[in-house]
């Protein structure tokens, strides 16, 4: 009896420790209660009737305390009880009618399921990303159209189109000509206050609509990035990339025999590779390592040089195009610069893939990251050169040969962006044709060793990010550019889907789709969105708007619209709060200084909390191992005091900082509480 009781105590304590470790490392605050329930439901741990009765009774109370956590499905309860569990949970929810209605409204739901089932989650992540970007553009279109374009169209102001300019089909490609004078571009908007039911100030509405849209985009991106980071990086341990991930990612929805065999092959190859990776890491000699580093340096130098060269090429091409136009003095725009930019984006990544093949990477993940980074540098440098050219040369009217009365530099920039978007779309179609269709033909007919191509998710996602950046830069200069973007993404979705199903095979390596998605969202945000936002901000802060067109004509810079409005508000009573906010908050430096200090302090506090928890995890792990090794040999009358001592010892030995000890104290208090109650039960059993 005593031996059996001791065995049960040990098992119970081990399970309890294990569960506290787990709940702490997953930072679930009330999971202690949940795992208390779970511990008792394990029949292998505790097999006593009155133990069961006591604990089950206690669990019922705990279930009431934290109902949202107790959605576990205990294995050994009879089915009727299990069904009763689910029944009580689901009757609180809104009703399944809502979920089925929501499912039918979602765009492309069936297609996504089909693609996910056949090709896996990494390819599906591309299509989900495309859908997400499409939502941004739809929102932007609704906002711009509703707040900027419709008031202008409704005010019956005829656009002043000069004589002789009519709609020819070429405008769809070049964006100039007839389109130049419509509401497509900045120049088509007036700066007046439209009198109607209400006085609608076009200047303020233009400025605030664009600003609000960019800020909302920024918040949405930050939120997605942070939640994706938390889910896929912090909770998913990146170090343990190994066997369990591979084994547990077996896709249960594959139905064809051949696909199953193929997956088994791939899995075996990946398992063998991961085993040999671990073994091989220590085996490189010094000369081999030097050689590898030399190759890395060489290829990085080459790729940066290529990117710089492309940037310089684009800049000189822009100047050359301007000179040609000046000499020929026609209004025909050429597609030379967009063509070259898209050609660069198509061809240079192929060189980068070639470099990648020569380099030796210990880790397949690092290989993909290096490739992605080089492509990003290329695209960012090309876009940066273009923006620099527009900001410095076009905006400051350094181009001779344009009549100053009709020169509208924002519309010129808008047209250039429009052409870039259209040509990028054409090249995406061509790239899909060459990239996937031709690779399939070559792989299956000509060079059989290459085989059927895989869908290159990284390259396609980068192309999407680049396309979306163009749209974000262009929002200020051409408010209706999102329309083109929406059409483009719609067509692209169906094109890629057809191309995928006809030409590609499922990926050979079950990759880390979730982590790649985090990287892509982070890339979307940090270089590209922030770059687009800073360019729009620089335009509205420092550059002089054109004098003869657009909503901000005649002002020093765009932001002075707000200044003028604030002056105007001073004469209106009841708006002192707006003026106060403007003067004390937006224009004063002390406010930003204080905010920065407070944010830094909060970040420091959170960082300390994280460090403390990491330390605690290490200590608990060690404690679990210790207990399972020693407790089986230690007699009962030593065991109980030892448990108490361990807890106190833990509390004393970690006074690194006040925050650490505070956290440890609170956690240890809970731990002690449970241990004491466990001891009481053990004593009751004797």
């Amino acid at each position, binding site marked *: 009896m005593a031996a059996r009781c001791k065995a049960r105590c040990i098992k119970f304590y081990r399970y309890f*420790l*294990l*569960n506290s470790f*787990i709940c702490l*490392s*997953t930072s679930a605050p009330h999971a202690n209660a949940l*795992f208390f329930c*779970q511990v008792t439901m*394990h029949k*292998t741990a505790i097999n006593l009737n009155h133990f069961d009765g006591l604990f089950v009774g206690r669990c019922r109370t705990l279930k009431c305390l934290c109902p949202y956590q107790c*959605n*576990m*499905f205990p*294995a050994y309860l009879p*089915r009727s009880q299990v*069904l009763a569990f*689910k029944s009580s949970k*689901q009757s609180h929810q809104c009703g*399944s009618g809502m*979920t*089925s209605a929501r*499912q039918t409204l979602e765009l492309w739901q069936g297609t996504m399921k089909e693609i*996910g*089932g056949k090709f*896996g*989650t990494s390819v599906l992540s591309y299509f989900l990303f495309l859908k997400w970007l499409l939502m941004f553009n739809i929102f932007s279109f609704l906002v711009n159209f509703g707040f900027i374009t419709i008031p202008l169209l409704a005010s019956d102001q005829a656009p002043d189109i000069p004589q002789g300019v009519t709609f020819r089909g070429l405008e769809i490609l070049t964006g100039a000509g007839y389109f130049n004078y419509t509401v497509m571009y900045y120049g088509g908007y007036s700066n007046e206050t439209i009198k109607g039911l209400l006085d609608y100030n076009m200047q303020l509405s233009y400025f605030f609509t664009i600003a609000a849209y960019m800020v909302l985009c920024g918040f949405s991106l930050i939120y997605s990035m942070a939640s994706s980071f938390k889910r*896929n990086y912090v*909770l*998913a*341990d990146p170090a*343990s990339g*190994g*066997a*369990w*991930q591979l*084994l*547990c*990612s*077996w*896709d*249960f*929805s*594959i*139905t*064809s*025999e051949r696909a*199953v065999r193929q997956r*088994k*092959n791939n899995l*075996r190859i990946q*398992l063998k590779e991961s*085993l040999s990776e671990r073994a091989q890491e220590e085996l490189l000699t010094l000369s081999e390592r030097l050689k590898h580093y030399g190759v890395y340096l060489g290829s990085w130098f080459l790729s940066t040089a290529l990117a710089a060269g492309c940037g310089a090429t684009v800049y000189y091409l822009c100047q050359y195009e301007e000179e040609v136009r000046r000499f020929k003095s026609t209004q025909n725009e050429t597609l030379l610069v967009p063509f070259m930019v898209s050609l660069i984006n198509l061809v240079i990544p192929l060189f980068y893939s070639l470099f990648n093949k020569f380099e030796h990477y210990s880790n397949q993940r690092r290989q993909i990251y290096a490739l992605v980074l080089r492509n990003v540098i290329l695209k960012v440098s090309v876009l940066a050169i273009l923006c620099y050219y527009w900001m410095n040369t076009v905006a400051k009217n350094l181009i001779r040969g344009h009549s100053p009365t009709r020169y509208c530099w924002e519309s010129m920039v808008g047209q250039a962006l429009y052409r870039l978007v259209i040509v990028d779309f054409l090249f995406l179609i061509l790239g899909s044709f060459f990239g996937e269709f031709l690779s399939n033909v070559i792989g299956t007919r000509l060079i059989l060793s290459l085989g059927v191509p895989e869908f290159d998710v990284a390259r396609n996602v980068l192309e999407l990010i680049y396309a979306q950046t163009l749209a974000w830069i262009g929002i200020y200069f051409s408010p209706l550019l999102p329309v083109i973007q929406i059409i483009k993404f719609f067509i692209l979705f169906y094109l890629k889907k057809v191309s995928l199903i006809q030409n590609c095979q499922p990926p050979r390596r079950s990759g880390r*789709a*979730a*982590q790649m998605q985090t990287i892509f969202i982070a890339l979307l945000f940090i270089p590209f969105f922030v770059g687009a936002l800073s360019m729009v901000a620089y335009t509205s802060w420092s550059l002089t708007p054109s004098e003869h067109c657009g909503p901000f004509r005649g002002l020093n810079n765009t932001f002075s619209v707000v200044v003028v409005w604030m002056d105007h508000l001073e004469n209106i009573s009841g708006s002192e709060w707006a003026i106060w906010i403007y003067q004390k908050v937006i224009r004063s430096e002390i406010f930003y200084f204080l905010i920065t200090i407070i944010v830094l302090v909060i970040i420091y506090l959170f960082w300390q909390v994280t460090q403390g928890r990491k330390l605690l995890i290490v200590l608990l*792990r060690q404690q*679990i*191992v210790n207990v*399972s*090794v020693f407790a089986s040999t230690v007699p009962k009358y030593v065991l109980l005091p030892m448990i108490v001592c361990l807890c106190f010892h833990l509390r004393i030995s970690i006074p690194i900082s006040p925050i650490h000890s505070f956290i440890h104290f609170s956690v240890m208090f809970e731990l002690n509480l449970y241990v004491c109650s466990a001891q009481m039960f053990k004593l009751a059993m004797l």
Partner: protein
Amino acid sequence: MGTTASQLGKDLLSEYQELTFLTKQEILLAHKRFTELLSKEDKALPNPRIPMQSILTLPELKSNPFRKRICHVFSTSDMKDGSLTFEDFLDLLSAFSDSATLEIKSHYAFRIFDFDDDGTLDVGDLEKLVNCLTGETDDTRLTPDEMRQLINNILEESDIDKDGTVNLSEFQHVISRSPDFVSSFKIVL
């Protein structure tokens, strides 16, 4: 709670909808596929039970490496022969559906991987698991050295209390850190 009619009653349908993670269409489709597998005599029974061999002819399960384990786990028959009633079948589809939670999926995954049904994944279970996933024939499986090393790696990663086996909590801990699990543990008719 069985049915003999070829149509499900409305209140039975809504009850199943409440008690599983499936939608109405999925339950009706499951009922249709289940009755197709029944033999003529069984259709007259109040609570028909399909033997495992018939279940394994379903295209969704036919090539799954874990098909026999799945049938055993979800079966409620006293003879432990893997036969399923309609409600067992619904349980199966519910656990493998889109909307099932991570806890339920990891729970059932643990039971499926536990080949000897002893409540923990020990070395024998892990070996059978790896063999299931890499291939049955001699030239496709891993060598004994590689197998041993692989299982060592697995246990190093996931065995927290160092007792040589992976129990349910440790398994769920590992699963919670694998974000691709939920989307791959799916069977849709």
